[in-house]
């Protein structure tokens, strides 16, 4: 299917000028079909550069990216096809809305895939359903909707292409907590229904901790950690040292541990923290 294999990936910006910088270096990753991956890293750590390699928007300076067993940069055709297979939602995707109506905007992707009218219609309705956009909105101009609605419509525009891999760059940036939760739930629903791989880049550690099966940490253009939420957040101090946040519960556990409480490492949800504390208290009472 669409397993992603990244080998020795390296990308250099402005090669040959005084501004030359290597944005990412020596990235080796395998992302199996259906995994929900969270990517975290500070600003300028190379995450955005990395995800733009996943659908051949950027060509690697060295190394290669394979999707479903095929080198995506092999030819012009493979570079085009991978865009249908790997859907990329950029940061603040609402700024790319351009059509007169919501319906037409969502239909832009499928139309570019040269699908039939019925197929397009079906996909638009399905995608709108995934992100909870009602059909009453279809004939409105996307520019007159609220921020959260625009964001959902933009995501629907990518989902309508039915990508086997869905990549989202900061899908919840600038939204209120309710809007955040709704978008993440929409994305999870899409994954459950279609079995797609989902990669989410985020600064919100609580979101990542809650939904991701695997967390990849970028720092200075390299992968510095790669594992389950428990594994990654058990190295909380290291994360803080490279300038990242940790989930609330992890930060709290870290502070309590410094106070002398014998809490285990790798706590990243409030439930885990609660049960760990109860366990210690229980032991103390006995």
């Amino acid at each position, binding site marked *: 299917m669409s397993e992603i294999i990244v080998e020795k990936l390296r990308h250099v910006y402005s090669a040959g000028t005084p501004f030359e910088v290597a944005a990412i270096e020596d990235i080796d990753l395998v992302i199996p079909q259906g995994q929900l991956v969270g990517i975290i890293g500070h600003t300028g750590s190379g995450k955005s550069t990395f995800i733009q390699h996943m659908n051949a928007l950027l060509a690697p300076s060295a190394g290669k990216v394979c999707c479903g067993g095929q080198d995506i940069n092999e030819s012009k055709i493979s570079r085009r096809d991978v865009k249908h297979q790997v859907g990329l939602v950029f940061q603040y995707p609402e*700024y790319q809305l351009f059509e007169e109506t919501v319906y037409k905007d969502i239909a832009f992707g499928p139309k570019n895939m040269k699908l039939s009218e019925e197929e397009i219609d079906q996909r638009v309705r399905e995608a709108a359903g995934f992100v909870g956009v009602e059909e009453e909105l279809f004939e409105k101009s996307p520019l007159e909707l609220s921020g959260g609605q625009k964001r959902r419509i933009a995501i629907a525009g990518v989902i309508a292409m039915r990508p086997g891999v869905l990549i989202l760059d900061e899908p919840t940036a600038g939204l209120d907590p309710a809007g955040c939760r709704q978008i993440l739930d929409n994305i999870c629903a899409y994954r459950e229904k279609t079995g797609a791989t989902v990669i989410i880049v985020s600064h919100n550690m609580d979101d990542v901790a809650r939904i991701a099966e695997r967390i990849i940490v970028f720092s200075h253009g390299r992968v510095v950690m790669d594992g389950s939420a428990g594994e990654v957040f058990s190295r909380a101090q290291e994360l803080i040292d490279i300038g990242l946040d940790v989930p609330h519960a992890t930060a709290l556990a870290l502070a309590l541990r410094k106070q002398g409480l014998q809490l285990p490492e790798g706590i990243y949800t409030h439930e885990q923290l609660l049960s760990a504390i109860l366990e210690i208290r229980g032991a103390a009472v006995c």
Partner: protein
Amino acid sequence: MLKDITLGQFFPGDTIAHRLDPRTKLLLVVLFIVALFQARGWVAYGVLTLTVAACMTVSHISARNIFKGLKPMIFILALTGVLNIFYTGGTPILPGWIITWEGIARAIQMVLRIVLLITGTFLLTYTTSPIALTDGLELLLNPLKKLRFPVHEMTIMMSMALRFIPTLIEETDKIMSAQKARGADFETGSLMDRAKALLPVLVPLFVSAFRRADELAVAMESRCYHGGEGRTRMKQLILKGRDYIALALGILLLAGIIYLKKWGL
């Protein structure tokens, strides 16, 4: 791709060329252009080419960067060369040919003139930040204020426009990437198709440009900006010894070229 446009780009550095007052550099470019159009013979062109080469060495600007900037001009350069080769009278290189020795010489000189012209102005923008450039321009044009010409307004508009070129290019790049990710195709198809394909880029670009302009106006107003009246500068421009020396050299160059012209060299 779009980011590779070097036209008018500033390369930070700390050479004597970077430290010169922007007014000096602007005047030098004017002097250089006048000299360029006074050049008639090979000696004059030789002197000017050497001058440009010397300036490039001093300011650490490599020939590669200049070539990159010249690339978009290739068509104009080629056209100039070809037209001059074929439309200049004189002695044919072979009996019966239209191509003349004079034509070839003229073509080379004309192409050289344009290349030197562009290179000279590139040296200015490569070594001067846009802010310094507009500051220098404002001071140079100050006398026009007496004629009620809105110098400050004009230069602030210029510096804002320059400031936002990279931002808008970046924005265009981002929107194009986003639409490409949705399968938009900007590279193939007929002229009409390609023009239509730009719509998904232009609409969001305009929307964001207006939003940005609005935000900028609010930001400026909330910092009490109200035009040039009584406004002071953080960086005072003061002409130093090196500026006078550079200007003297510039005038010397122009005088030299005019002198050479008299002798037909």
